[in-house]
């Protein structure tokens, strides 16, 4: 997040989605004196913080709107600054007009995206991790992501990092204890502190590391990919799942040139549904590009569905058959000769049997239920260990895991304690990225709260 930071007050519509609504909420942040706004409101008495006032918004004598006004006085506000929150009528024209009014008359500037929160970070109302949590929360595509966002926002994950960091400091102090106070505590004691503290740290870390699952299941914005040869019924299924005519459905193979994507909500989780281009001999370039993208899309998908039209099998299907799919369905069950065609395909590709054969026209309710269930089961399965969703955290935890393995190996074979301690610094740097930064005094403090030493 980079802003050309300037101190002036900022304004934005906090509910804006560019559609008319009953209400819209405007926020003005960072002004010095509430009094400078008093000419704009009909309310004449004092305005106390955190009370709602029903008043008229005026431009000289003209009434602009009836609004509800709340004042949050800094530093006890969301971002530590003075904040004025206005609930206005949510017609987009009205919103635009009022924003313009404040920009022209109250020395405000339109806020950059995220600037309110940036100021909260700057004013130390939120930590980086909380900001990340807020971002996750506001953009969550599922209940799970919502929960994790909230958990970050309230500092829960931070708490776990803190505990991990404390265990790390304990281990580091055990090592320093053996160097600086070996004479006082005795070698045996120092060694046993060293070993047990490493074990404790590793145990705690491993439980965190289990929450980092491979990157290719993108849970932040899970994608469902429809794949299959041209004319296998992908677009029909796509439209069916969306219940609208979005893709061009035609009987000519290869109509869907690139891919289409739409959002679909299944069991409270928002997925991106993607209809890929069909795979066929790359006779024209656009189609070839589409095939390449299909494969690429498949790699990053959360859930992949292969549709097979047993009547139109082509040689290039063998390419598709090599990939892994979460679900495979045969289409065109309503056509005569389906059973024979189906078994012919299975003879060549036994990995696709037994699978559902779908007649989208007649069995949609049952089909949809089966599909939704398997998607949901996979989602629940992947989220049951509370995976960590933020890439920055995932990356750091994976790096720590690698360094920790190296460190454990080193600590068993290296006799030079100074070198062991030096290597521990690499871990420390990564851990402090997850949280704070190591200072020797923290380590010494930890030594003294846990060990008895003498002169």
């Amino acid at each position, binding site marked *: 997040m980079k802003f050309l930071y300037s101190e002036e007050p900022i304004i934005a519509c906090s509910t804006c989605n560019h559609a008319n609504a009953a209400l819209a909420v405007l926020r003005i942040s960072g002004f010095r004196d509430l009094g400078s706004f008093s000419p704009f409101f009909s309310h004449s008495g004092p305005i106390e913080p955190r009370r709602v006032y029903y008043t008229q918004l005026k431009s000289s004598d003209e009434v602009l709107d009836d609004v509800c006004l709340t004042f949050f006085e800094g530093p006890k506000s969301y971002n530590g600054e003075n904040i004025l929150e206005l609930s206005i009528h949510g017609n987009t024209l009205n919103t635009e007009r009022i924003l313009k009014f404040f920009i022209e008359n109250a020395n405000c500037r339109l806020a950059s995206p995220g600037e309110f929160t940036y100021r909260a970070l700057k004013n130390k109302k939120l930590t980086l991790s909380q900001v990340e949590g807020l971002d996750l929360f506001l953009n969550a595509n599922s209940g799970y992501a919502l929960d994790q966002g909230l958990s970050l926002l309230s500092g829960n994950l931070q708490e776990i990092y803190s505990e991990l960091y404390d265990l790390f400091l304990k281990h580091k102090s055990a090592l320093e204890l053996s160097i600086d106070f070996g004479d006082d505590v005795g070698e045996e004691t120092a060694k046993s502190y060293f070993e047990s503290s490493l074990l404790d740290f590793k145990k705690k870390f491993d439980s965190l590391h289990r929450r980092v699952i491979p990157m290719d299941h993108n849970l932040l914005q899970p994608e469902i990919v429809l794949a299959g040869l041209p004319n296998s019924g992908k677009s029909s299924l796509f439209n069916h799942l969306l219940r609208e005519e979005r893709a061009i459905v035609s009987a000519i193979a290869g109509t869907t040139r690139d891919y289409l994507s739409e959002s679909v909500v299944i069991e409270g989780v928002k997925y991106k549904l993607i209809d890929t281009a069909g795979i066929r001999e790359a006779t024209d370039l656009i189609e070839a590009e589409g095939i390449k993208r299909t494969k690429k899309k498949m790699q990053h998908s959360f859930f992949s569905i292969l549709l097979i039209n047993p009547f139109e099998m082509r040689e290039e299907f063998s390419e598709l058959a090599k990939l892994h799919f979460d679900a495979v369905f045969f289409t065109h069950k309503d056509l005569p000769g389906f059973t024979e065609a189906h078994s012919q395909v299975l003879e060549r590709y036994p990995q696709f049997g037994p699978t559902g054969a779908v007649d989208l026209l007649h069995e949609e309710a049952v089909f949809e239920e089966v599909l939704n269930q398997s998607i949901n089961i996979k989602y629940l399965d992947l989220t049951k260990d509370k995976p960590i969703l933020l890439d920055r955290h995932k990356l750091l935890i994976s790096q720590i895991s690698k360094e920790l393995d190296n460190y454990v190996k080193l600590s068993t074979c290296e006799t030079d304690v*100074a070198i062991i301690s030096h290597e521990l610094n690499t871990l420390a740097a990564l851990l402090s990225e997850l949280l*704070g930064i190591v200072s*020797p005094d923290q380590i010494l403090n930890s030594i003294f709260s846990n060990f008895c030493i*003498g*002169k």
Partner: protein
Amino acid sequence: MFHVEHFDEDQMQTFDIIIVGGGHAGIEAAHIAAQFGLNVSIITMPGIGLGSAPCNPSVGGVGKGQVVRELDALGGLMGILADKAGIQFRTLNDSKGFAVQSSRVQIDKDLYSQKAEELIATVANISVIREKVLEIKPGESFFEVITTERSYRTKKIIMTVGTFLNGKLHTGSHQASGGRVDCEPSNGLTTLFSDIKTRPYRFKTGTPPRLDKATIDYSKLEEQPSDSTVRNFHCLHSPYERYSRQVSCFLAKTNPETMEIIRANKEKSPMFNGQIKGVGARYCPSIEDKAYRYPDKNIHHVFIEPEGLELDTMYPSGISSSLPREVQEMYVRSIEGLEKAEIKVFGYAVEYDVIDTTDLKLTLEHIQIPNLYFAGQVNGTSGYEEAAGQGFIAGANAALNLLGLDPLIMSRHESYIGVMIEDLTSNTRDEPYRLFTARSENRLFIREDNSLLRMFPYRAQFLLNTPLDSYQRKFLESYQVLTDFCDETMIPEYCPLMSEFAGVGELQQLNRRMSVTEILKQAWLNPISTLERVVGYHGLTIQSDLVRTVAISKKYDGYIKRSESQYEKLKKMDGMHIDWESIYASTNISFECRQRIARIRPETFGQLKLIDGIRPATLAVVAAKAL
């Protein structure tokens, strides 16, 4: 207030630098300042020898041995004196890697002080004045120092007054004024200087009872003889020559009965019944601390150390106490081997004033009062080595400043002295400060073996030309030659040396042509004996100190380079400017952290980090701003 007599200016003796206090800080300050040809005086309490050792009779130790060698390479006294008075030598952390190995020498404390007197007496431009200082008055360009006898004038003044400021001794309920046993205290800072702010609280330190040498049953104790392989501290001394007869130390242990006696008498301990208000160091705990703070631990090491060859007392390290005499007697005699021990001097605690070191510059000069320096225990440190290091910095800087030369500012990246000075001046401590290797971020580099190399640029800054300087120049040249030899000499795989150096297992074979440098980095090889062998094989004769320094430097080379790049990154972060007022105003940071921040007023992230007790959460909050 004292009545101040005014002397005629002509009658008043005038100095360039007066050092108040003749302890380990004072003599280093005076000695180095005198090297620059300035007119220096030590004013010290009558009846106390220079460089006396009122607590443990040893010099060096983990982290501290490095300081002594740094001082020695800079031209300090401590190494010379410790060698001359050394009666038992030991390397601590012998098995833990070269970087954390430190030398420690038990000293004959009478001999040490006697050698200090002799050495200072040979320096013509140091006058030792044995009078008690009553008041110091800052003037226009001079300070006036008023003693019980007369007044002196000086351009610069260095306070190395140890534990004497408002000193108060405690043994049980018995209290006495004094800087140490049988010594009167000096006036408090508030009397000495009316315009220096003292700290709102006092520090405390303690010392154990001294035992009669003849009443200990040594057959029940573990003997620790002197180690003849420890190199002398002073670089110009013959490495392994001993100047005094060598004796042993002994290891005793406390037992449940010992600790029970102490626990049963808790209300008689001045430290725990509220009689002592001063704060002691957690890392130098009294036996009471150990008994009350760790109720489950009953076995503690007690090192029985000789205080001198002629002295009839032993110093039991690890059982310092301010308990009443009869309790001290009881717990001492509960220890195996000490059943019949007689106490010659009882243990006591001493409380004293300390100054706020954040008021000092990196030269140890007071920020508000120019030309006034503070060094040693009055700065809230513990230990002779820490005191000596600061004394040297203050003395050298006072002199350099008078001569208009660049100040001596030592980097924490290159020396333990630098670590200490930066820690002290950037941070208000709430307990006595002692050096550990853990305080350094660059431990693999700041070692004993390379202290000459590390100190050379600083020493060169003095523009002196003594035998020490020519020795250092020669050492540095030879170091370069041997380093180049290691880099450039290739040993082929069929050379008999290579099979000699092979370890067990396939991974420990040297089956290709390698440079000597590469060979020295192999984990299973001792770099020193390896390089010795290579040098011998090539028919060269090289000084053992040099081989040691080069071999260890090569061994750590890669690690040090990596840590330097980490350090660079950290330094960038540390240099980041922070607005302490806004942090203080933040509601998201704990109350104690905010209090500390308000007191220290850190300007950079690095300074914030160094504040005692700043929580990781606070750092995270502040660091977030940088992203």
